């Protein structure tokens, strides 16, 4: 138990690893020894390049991994291990009720031939058992909570703008009043205004007491919504930091995180040299060393994720933390 007066932990992921058996005997280490917490009323953004294992992590948490996957470790959600739970438990008591997914492309997530209202009511009936008038009222309430306009409830998904479709998808995710929301790349392909509005919506639900895990490669969206940042590289979490420290001063401590920020057009706009390693052929030692300006002989050993709570980094040559933020 920690001495901090932090809010209760909703999701507690411990040393979660996922690997895939491929044809020809290859194994792909998609996620390796990932540990993090998401508390109620907190947003953790998991950022990293495409192909770093972020989406696999989401699938693992929702029990949606394909048949050739193997998992290790645990992911406790208010005491229930999502990794060990069987499919029946996940389907009946977890998905939609305790963990809700906000999908990557809301337009594809909604049934094109039915109105938003009928889809919301169906989900209400499925998750709460409410019928008739009650279901109708519940659907309208949840639409209101997601800021979905009531006069658009009888529209079909293709009649909605991208922003409204996103809100409809959020409304569907809110029906079961799940304490944990997982948003998988909620802003991909949206323009900046829509990104801002979407993440502001998400932030509102965090402030209402939901725990939120956002998987994204959009650093600007992460900065806007997240309390804490987890940077993922080649299947491992290489840095955990408070969002203010990460994007402001003193900045990220892992060289990879620095490189990611420096690649932004509002900063240096310089790419990290090289490409991320293949997850089926990870180098020995630190996976970032081949691209790292600070790498030396010490990097032949995999660095452990070490540091105080909320400020951890997995690097032998991490950038220094300034004194005033060191002992929070």
């Amino acid at each position, binding site marked *: 138990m920690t001495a901090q007066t932090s809010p209760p932990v909703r999701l507690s992921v411990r040393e979660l690893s996922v690997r895939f058996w491929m044809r020809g005997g290859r194994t792909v280490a998609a996620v390796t020894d990932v540990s993090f917490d998401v508390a109620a009323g907190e947003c953790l953004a998991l950022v990293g390049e495409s192909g770093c294992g972020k989406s696999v992590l989401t699938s693992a948490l929702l029990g949606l991994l394909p048949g*050739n996957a193997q998992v290790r470790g645990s992911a406790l959600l208010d005491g229930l291990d999502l990794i060990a739970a069987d499919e029946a438990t996940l389907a009946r008591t977890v998905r939609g009720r305790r963990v809700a997914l906000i999908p990557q492309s809301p337009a594809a997530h909604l049934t094109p031939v039915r109105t938003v209202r009928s889809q919301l009511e169906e989900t209400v009936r499925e998750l709460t058992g409410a019928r008739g008038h009650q279901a109708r009222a519940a659907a309208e309430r949840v639409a209101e909570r997601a800021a979905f306009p009531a006069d658009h409830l009888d529209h079909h998904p293709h009649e909605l703008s991208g922003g409204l479709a996103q809100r409809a998808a959020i409304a569907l995710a809110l029906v079961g009043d799940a304490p944990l929301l997982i948003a998988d790349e909620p802003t991909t392909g949206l323009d900046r205004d829509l990104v801002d509005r979407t993440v502001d919506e998400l932030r509102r639900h965090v402030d209402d007491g939901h725990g939120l895990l956002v998987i994204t490669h959009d650093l600007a969206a992460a900065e806007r919504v997240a309390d804490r940042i987890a940077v993922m590289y080649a299947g491992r979490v290489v840095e955990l930091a408070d969002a203010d420290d990460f994007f402001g001063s003193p900045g990220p401590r892992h060289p990879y995180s620095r490189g990611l920020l420096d690649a932004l057009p509002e900063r240096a706009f310089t790419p990290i040299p090289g490409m991320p390693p293949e997850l089926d052929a990870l180098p020995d030692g630190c996976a970032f060393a081949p691209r790292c300006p600070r790498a030396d002989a010490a990097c032949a050993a995999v660095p452990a994720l070490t540091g105080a709570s909320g400020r951890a980094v997995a690097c032998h040559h991490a950038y220094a933390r300034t004194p005033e933020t060191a002992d929070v």
Partner: protein
Amino acid sequence: MTTADPTNDTNPGTGAGAAWRAVGADGRRARTRRGLVPLVLVAATVLAVLVVPPLFPLDQQAVDLAAKLRPPSPEHPFGTDEMGRDLLLRSVYGLRVSLLVGVVAALVATVVGIAVGAAAGALGGTVDRLVMRAVDVFASVPHLLMGIFIVAMFRPGVWPVVASVGLTHWVSTARIVRAEVHSLRGRPYLDAAISGGASRWRVTVRHLLPGVLPQAGLAAVLMVPHAIWHESALSFLGLGIPAHQASLGTMVEAARGTLLAGAWWTTLWPGLFIVVPTLAIAGLAGAWRERINPRRRSELML
């Protein structure tokens, strides 16, 4: 431990002694087994029609009236028909004719269907509309009626039946291919090919057809049972294969009279030879459809 600092108990590489757990391995095994029974049946059928005729030649004209309508026995495992001919051997020969007609007719129908469908889909516009209305006209005439019309123009034999089945069944393939081509036509990779200087022909042959072939192949396989039934129906009506030649349809037709006399075996075996291989082919096609379904094909998505 659940509220402990996530960073202190992290020890890369050791995995805390926890074991790897598999996810959903059973489902995959069930999927491979689903195609196994039809595969064995189809293989047995093909082997039988290829191996039996050279080893046991059949004289189509020979009759042995002394041994007519014998029930199944060790000497004649399927019994004999009203002419005293061995039913097992005739059934295998009949199956050979039916399979030949089925496969060739399905190929004819598929080639015609792909050509028409691809042309309609690739050219689009007015050509597409005209071709598809012609397809509708073809589809609105009952297959059997048109099949009878076509065989009636030729002398009885195998090839008129092939032509009849092939020329009536290309319509569904043409529709499938056209729909598939249409859905591919909107893909940016075709735009990229056009922008890269590819000619119409090259876009069709290199990018459109390869994307359509799995679906068209599936349609062709699914058409084989259909063609077999069609051949049997034509022969049963006396319009297909000449009556003295062994064919599943003519055998069932000839056995109609003896069925009332209690000779159940004369219809049962040819009937089973129609039903079992066609169901097996359909089952195999179903397993194949699952394989080419892209949702199931991708095992790993990062």
